[in-house]
């Protein structure tokens, strides 16, 4: 038998053992700390509402022709119907249900440019034709009206479907098309706006009204271009591009200030040299350099970039075109290469989830930490010049071209000219700091 007095003596040890248990569990819960290695969190900004604007002018009628039983429908009808359906299908995921509008010319009896419609009305019009085609509204006015909706409800993203033919009323003023477009956008702040343009071609059956205001031409199934513009806040447009417009990823496109957030991460067990480790520092991938990092023992850090969701043209450009903004450090980009060209990547899922690799060398510890930026400078999309024409009088002969498209998009580019972010297609920050 154990005498009771012993327990009194050991009572002294009880608080100690309690402490041990508490600390022990604390230490084991710390185990998970090393494995938070996922891609940086996407910004929390939410899409308030998606507006879909479909041009209902007579010039669009040729895309939305009625089809005989068994006919496949035009490319326009298939693409836009699928898009409308996707937007409508997402209504439960957004803060507000999507809004649908016809775009028409303001007249004396009906001064509205945007006529609210239901999903069914819009989808019906696309598949069987517009019942009462209106005169087309001017492109700048259409953009300005769309932006008015944005001003009323921040966080709105507009998807505008039109042929985007803009011929000024006075054909002598075509030289100022780009200024008109820039002015139309100027109601909004360029820093908070982005425009993505997706181009498509579709067979056209009906009257084509040239942008230079010459006689209309009747077409019987010739291919004509149409465009889907996505307008809204930079990251929201990037998100809509990557989700609702994913089907159009392979089509020619142009992006202005659109913020794509491709997943990327620091790879701490691949071709790493020098003493550094991956630090958890919130949304931006971070690297902590130990004291031993120096010119003699530089840190070499490989980043994995998953560019599957960015435009195909950029993916191709990335292997050659990525740049490093060293942010006052002497960090240098040693090499960028596609994962497909990395022999060691075979059978390594942690590398295969990326499309590109970029190796950075840092040989100096930045005192307070520095934010390096891996960037892809913006390039003028080559297809724009080819899809643009200065005279669309005989469009049947010219093929799928749009009147002064290059000028229209130049106007958009001019509008974003003062935005440093708009000059970069990709901007991926990496924090470099001293190890604690």
């Amino acid at each position, binding site marked *: 038998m154990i005498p009771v007095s012993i327990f009194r003596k050991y009572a002294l040890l009880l608080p100690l053992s309690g402490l*041990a248990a508490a600390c*022990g569990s604390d230490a084991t819960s710390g*185990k998970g*700390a*090393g*494995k938070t290695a996922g891609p940086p969190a996407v910004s929390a900004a939410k899409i308030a509402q998606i507006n879909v604007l479909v041009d209902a002018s007579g010039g669009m009628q040729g895309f939305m022709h009625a089809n005989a039983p068994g006919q496949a429908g035009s490319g326009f009808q298939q693409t836009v119907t699928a898009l409308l359906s996707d937007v409508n299908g997402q209504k439960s995921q957004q803060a507000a249900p999507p809004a649908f509008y016809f775009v028409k010319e303001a007249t004396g009896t009906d001064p509205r440019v945007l006529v609210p419609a239901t999903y069914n009305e819009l989808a019906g019009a696309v598949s069987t034709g517009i019942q009462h085609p209106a005169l087309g509204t001017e492109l700048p006015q259409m953009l300005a009206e769309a932006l008015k909706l944005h001003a009323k409800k921040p966080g709105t993203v507009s998807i505008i479907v039109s042929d985007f033919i803009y011929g000024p009323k006075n054909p002598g003023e075509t030289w100022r098309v780009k200024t008109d477009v820039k002015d139309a956008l100027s109601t909004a702040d360029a820093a908070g706006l982005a425009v993505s343009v997706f181009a498509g071609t579709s067979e056209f059956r009906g009257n084509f009204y040239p942008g230079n205001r010459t006689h209309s031409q009747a077409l019987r199934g010739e291919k004509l271009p149409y465009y889907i513009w996505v307008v809204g806040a930079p990251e929201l447009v990037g998100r809509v591009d990557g989700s609702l417009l994913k089907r159009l990823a392979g089509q020619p496109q142009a992006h202005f200030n659109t913020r794509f957030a491709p997943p990327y991460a620091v790879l701490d067990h691949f071709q790493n040299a020098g003493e550094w*480790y991956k630090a958890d520092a919130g949304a931006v991938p971070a690297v*902590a350099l130990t004291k031993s990092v120096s010119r003699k023992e530089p840190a070499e850090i490989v980043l994995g970039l998953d560019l599957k969701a960015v435009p195909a043209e950029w993916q191709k450009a990335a292997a050659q075109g990525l740049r490093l903004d060293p942010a006052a450090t002497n960090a240098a980009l040693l090499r960028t290469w596609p994962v497909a060209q990395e022999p060691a990547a075979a059978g390594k899922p942690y590398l295969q989830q990326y499309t590109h690799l970029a190796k950075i060398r840092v040989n100096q510890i930045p005192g307070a930490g520095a934010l390096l930026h891996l960037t892809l400078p913006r390039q003028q999309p080559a297809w724009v010049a080819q899809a643009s024409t200065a005279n669309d009088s005989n469009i049947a002969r010219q093929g799928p071209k749009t009147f002064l498209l290059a000028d229209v998009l130049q106007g958009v580019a001019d509008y974003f000219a003062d935005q440093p972010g708009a000059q970069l297609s990709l901007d991926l920050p990496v924090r470099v700091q001293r190890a604690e």
Partner: protein
Amino acid sequence: MFQQLFTSLYQALLGTPAPSSLIPVYQKSIFPGVGLSTFFAVALGMALVYYVVLNRLMTTALFKTSHWLLFGLLTAVVAAGLAYSQAHSVVAETLNSSGVALEGIEQSAYNRYVLGFLCVNALFGALFFVFWSFVVKSFSTSARTTPVRWPN
């Protein structure tokens, strides 16, 4: 606090963890975890077993200083085993969760560092056992004066 304390204790003898990509794993998880369990579970446990269980609750002939030294050695061995298995399992878990495997230089750096770590922890285990011996020995009846009379 414990994280800081044990990190500086171990790194004073071992240097920065290698490969460097595992520094956060060692500093946040392995050092405090192994340090605390060596201090409390292993060293204190062994001291209690020796002084209270064997030399108070039971009456055994294990009260000599040589027995005490043997227990100190046993503590060191258990501490070394604990250090190795903890480091191994925590590192394996971390690597598995990110889908990578150590290769070449990293693997040999890891082996070298873990070897050093288990030696250092054996030393710490023995030292902690000595410390706890002096705390616990007054609870004993037959080994109150092992290894020395002080402070009883």
